[in-house]
C-alpha cells in the first residue's frame, strides 16, 4: 500500500507570474463542483492509513472556510500516522481556516512566501504583503500549528545576492522549521514567460545558490535535498516519499501517483475532470525505468542512496549496473561512494543533470 497521498486543489485567489501548475482563478461555484468530483475520486480509493498526506495546489487556503471544512472532512476517512501538510498562502489564510486545519489534524504547513521583498513580490505578480505574512504567523500561533515550512524563490533579474541574503536573514529569524528555496524557472506558458522575462545571469544565480546553501547550513537549517533545508527532525516526510521513490497516491486535477511499476497522472483538463474522467494516462514502468527513476530521485537527497536498501527494493546491483557512470563521475569528483551510501558531492549537486544523463545508459 502507498505510504502517502497527495491531494491537489487547483485554485488561487490570483495567479502568480511564474507558476506553471494546474490551477485556475478561484470561483465559489467552480470550487464547489470541483470538490464534488474530488469527493468521488477520494471515495474510489480504498480506506487505508497513510503515513503522510499533503494538500497542495494551487492554493488550498484559497477555498472558503466551508469548503475547506468539507475537504478536510472528506479526508478524515484516511487515518494519517505521521505528517499532514497543507499549503497556505499569506493572502488567503484566516484565523478560522487555521483553527479548522488544527481541528482536523493538520500538523504541518507550507507557506508560499516566495520573498519578503515587496518589489520582487510585485515582479512575480504576488498579491500578499508583509502584513499578510505577520497575520499568517499569528493565525498559526493561535491554532497551535508549529511545524512550518516556507517557500522562497531566487534568481530574479532585478535581485542581487544581498537581496537574497536579506530574505534568508528574515527567514531564519521567523518561527519556522523548514525552508524550500527554488531557483526561478521561467516557463513559456506563464505570464512571465509570455513577457519574455529573463532571469538573473548565470554567475549571479550560481552565487545566490551557493550563498543560500552556506547561509542556511550555518543557521540551523541543514540542506537535505537540492532545494530543501530543515531544522533537525523536520525534514518533509511526505516529500522524502517521492525522493526515496516509494509509492504514493494522488487525487485531484493533474495529480500523479505511483504504485509499484504503475504510474498514473490525472487529467490536466478542468472540464474533463469535472465530468468525472479523472484519470489521464497510466504507464507501466519497465524494471530499467524504475531503477533509473529511483536514482534520479534518490540522488537529489544529500545523504544519497542507501545502496543495500536500493538493491533489495529493486532487485538489482546498483554499483555494477551503473559501473561506468559511477566511475566517471567519481573520477570527476561529482559522486562519492561510501560503504553503503552513494551520494552526490558538494560539486555534484550543481550538475546533477549531467550525472543523471550518464546514468541513462
Amino acid at each position: 500500500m502507498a505510504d502517502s497521498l497527495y491531494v491537489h486543489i487547483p485554485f488561487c485567489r490570483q495567479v502568480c507570474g511564474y507558476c506553471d501548475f494546474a490551477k485556475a482563478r478561484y470561483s465559489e461555484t467552480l470550487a464547489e463542483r470541483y470538490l464534488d468530483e474530488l469527493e468521488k475520486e477520494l471515495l474510489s480509493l480504498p480506506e487505508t492509513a497513510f503515513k503522510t498526506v499533503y494538500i497542495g495546489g494551487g492554493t488550498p487556503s484559497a477555498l472558503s472556510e466551508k469548503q475547506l471544512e468539507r475537504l478536510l472532512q472528506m479526508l478524515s476517512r484516511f487515518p494519517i500516522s505521521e505528517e499532514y501538510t497543507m499549503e497556505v498562502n499569506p493572502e488567503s489564510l484566516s484565523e478560522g481556516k487555521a483553527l479548522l486545519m488544527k481541528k482536523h489534524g493538520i500538523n504541518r504547513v507550507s507557506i508560499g512566501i516566495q520573498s519578503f521583498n515587496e518589489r520582487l513580490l510585485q515582479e512575480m505578480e504576488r498579491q500578499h504583503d508583509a502584513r499578510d505574512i505577520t497575520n499568517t504567523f499569528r493565525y498559526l500561533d493561535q491554532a497551535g500549528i508549529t511545524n512550518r515550512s516556507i517557500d522562497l524563490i531566487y534568481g530574479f533579474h532585478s535581485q542581487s545576492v544581498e537581496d537574497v541574503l536579506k530574505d534568508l536573514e528574515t527567514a531564519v529569524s521567523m518561527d519556522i522549521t523548514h525552508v524550500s528555496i527554488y531557483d526561478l524557472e521561467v516557463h513559456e506558458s506563464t505570464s512571465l514567460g509570455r513577457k519574455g522575462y529573463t532571469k538573473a545571469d548565470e554567475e549571479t544565480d550560481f552565487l545566490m545558490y551557493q550563498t543560500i546553501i552556506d547561509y542556511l547550513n550555518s543557521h540551523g537549517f541543514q540542506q537535505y535535498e537540492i532545494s530543501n533545508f530543515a531544522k533537525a527532525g523536520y525534514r518533509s516526510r511526505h516529500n522524502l516519499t517521492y525522493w526515496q521513490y516509494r509509492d504514493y497516491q494522488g487525487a485531484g486535477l493533474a495529480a500523479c501517483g505511483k504504485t509499484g511499476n504503475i504510474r498514473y497522472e490525472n487529467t490536466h483538463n478542468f472540464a474533463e475532470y469535472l465530468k468525472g474522467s479523472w484519470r489521464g494516462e497510466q504507464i507501466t514502468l519497465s524494471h530499467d525505468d524504475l531503477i533509473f527513476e529511483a536514482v534520479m530521485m534518490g540522488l537529489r537527497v544529500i545523504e544519497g542512496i542507501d545502496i543495500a536498501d536500493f538493491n533489495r527494493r529493486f532487485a538489482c546491483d546498483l554499483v555494477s549496473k551503473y559501473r561506468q557512470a559511477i566511475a566517471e563521475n567519481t573520477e570527476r569528483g561529482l559522486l562519492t561512494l561510501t560503504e553503503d551510501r552513494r551520494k552526490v558531492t558538494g560539486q555534484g549537486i550543481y550538475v546533477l543533470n549531467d550525472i543523471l544523463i550518464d546514468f541513462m545508459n
Partner: protein
Amino acid sequence: MEQKYIRNFSIIAHIDHGKSTLADRILELTNTVEQRDMVSQILDDMDLERERGITIKLNAVSLIYKADDGHDYLFHLIDTPGHVDFSYEVSRSLAACEGAVLVVDATQGVEAQTLANVYLAIDNNLMVIPVINKVDLPSAMPEQVREEIEHDIGLDASDAPLISAKTGLNVHQVLENIVREIPAPDGDPKAPLQALIFDSYYDPYRGVIVFVRIKNGELKVGDTIKFMSNGLSYQVTEAGIRSPKEINKPKLECGEVGWFAASIKSVKDVRVGDTVTGAERPCREPLPGYREMQSMVYCGLYPTDNARYNDLRDALEKLQLNDASLKFEAETSQALGFGFRCGFLGLLHMDVVQERLEREYNLDLIATAPSVIYEVHMVNGEVRMVDNPAVLPPNQMIEYIAEPYVKAAIMSPSDYIGPIMELCQNKRGIYQDIIYMDDTRVQVVYELPLSEIIFDFFDKLKSCTRGYASLDYELIGYRKSELSKMDILINGEPIDALACIVHTQFAYQRGSAITRKLKDIIPKQQFEIPVQAALSGKVIARTNIKAYRKNVLAKCYGGDVSRKKKLLEQQKEGKKRMKAVGSVDIPQEAFMAVLSMDEE
C-alpha cells in the same frame, strides 16, 4: 518513327516556377500516364528532390502526341537538374535535345536560374520556346513578364502561350509550339552509331541502365558497343524507352532518346557526356563536350557513434552504385575516429549525399569543413596532393603550396557589375574581362581560388545581385599562393578536424573569426575551455568558453517525474548530436565554423 516526327526537348525553369507540374500535365494530356496513376510530379522520383524542390537525378520520358496536323509525334522529354554543381550534367542533357521549353512564373518573372539555364540551352544550340505559367493566379502579370523575357533574356516572347500548368489551361498550345518550332533531329541513320550518354543508374538485376540520345546510326539489342572515353566494350542485352514505365524495344533509332542495359557492373564505367559507338564499326570521332568527372570539394564524414563506421561504409558503397561522381576512401582523425574522406562535385552534391546518408541510412554524421585539393611542393622536390588540411606536412618541409584556380564567368544584368566585382576582389579574385552581351547583360570574368568559391560564394553572388546573376566556372590549374595551415586548439589540444589552410594575409582575421564563432557554437560545459588559433605553433587568436555553473532541476516532486525525465532525455539527445573530443563535447556545426567568415 520517322525522324521528322521526333521532338527531343527539356523543360527549363527556376525552382518553383512549375517545371515538374508542366511535365506532369504533358504526360497527362498525351495519355502517357493515366490520371489515377499520377503521382504528382512524376519525374522527380526521389523524396529528397521533391522535398527540396530540386531535381538531382536526370530522367527521360517518351510520349506520343497526336498533333493538330493529324500526325503522331514522338516526344522525348528530358529532365535536367538545376544547380551550379551539376551544370555539366545539365549541359549534357541539353545536348541530347533540339529544343527547350522555358517556363517563367507569371507572378515572379525572370530569375537568376532562368537566365543561367537559358544560356546553357543557347550554348547548346537549342531552340528555346518560352511559356508563361501560373496565369491563373490573381497576382499574375503575364504582359510584364512577357516583356521581361524579351528584354532580360532577349527571346521573342510574342507567341509565348499563357498557361496554367496546374489547371492545364493552354498546355495544348505548348505541345503545338513544340511540334512547330523545335526542329526534328537531323542525324544520319546509316552512319556508324554515335550516341550521347546523359544519365545512368544502377539496377541490381541488370547492371547499369544507360540513358542515351542516338545522334547517328542505331543501337540494336545484341550489338557490341564501345564507350569511347575508356574503350570498354559490352553487348547490349536490352534497350527501350520510358513512358515513364520501361518499354522494351529491339532497337533505338537515329534521333531517339532511350535506355539500354549491357551487364555493366559499375556506373563508374558509364560517364556522362561520353560517346557510345559500335565496337565493329566505330564512328570516327566522339561527340564534343565530354569532360572527365572531377571532385572539386572534399570533406571528412564520420559517424558520431564510432561503432557505426561499417554502416557508413556500406551506405557510401550503396550510394556510389548510382553516383559515379561520389568518391570516398577511409581516413582516421584523432578527434573524430574512423571515417571517410569523400569527394564531391560541389557543395550541393555534398549536402545531398550527407542528407541521404542521414535520412536513408539513419546515420548521425559529423562532416568536416569542405576543402579543395592543394598541391604541396616539398623542400625535397616531392609534390604531394593534399585534400585534407589535417595531413599537411609541417611548414619547414614545405617549399610552397599551390591551390586550384578557376575561371569564373558570371552572367548578370549590367546594373550589378559593382557589387560583383567587389565580391570577387574580396575573394582574392583577379579581374579578367567584362563582356557586354547586349545593352543590358554583361559577363564578368574573374580568376578565383577554388577554395574561396566553394563555400558561400554562390549565395553571396545571388544576394548581391538580387538573385539575377548566374555562375559558371571551370578549373584552370594550380597557382602558387601564400598558404599556411592554421591549427585550432580546444582545451589546449589541436583538433585535426578543425585545421584549415588559410592565406597568410588573412590568417589573423580568420583566426579570430573562427575562435569567436566556436565560442558561440560550442555549448558551455562543466569547465572553462580555451579556444585558440595557431600558425606554426604560434597562437594568433584566443577566446574562452566559460564553464556553466549549474545544471540541476530545482523542483522535482511526485508529480514531476515524467516531465523531468523527459527534460533529461532532451539534454541527452542534445549531447548525442555532439562529438566528444577529449573531454569536450563539440557539436556538428563547429566543424563547419572554420569556413564562415562573415562576422567581423
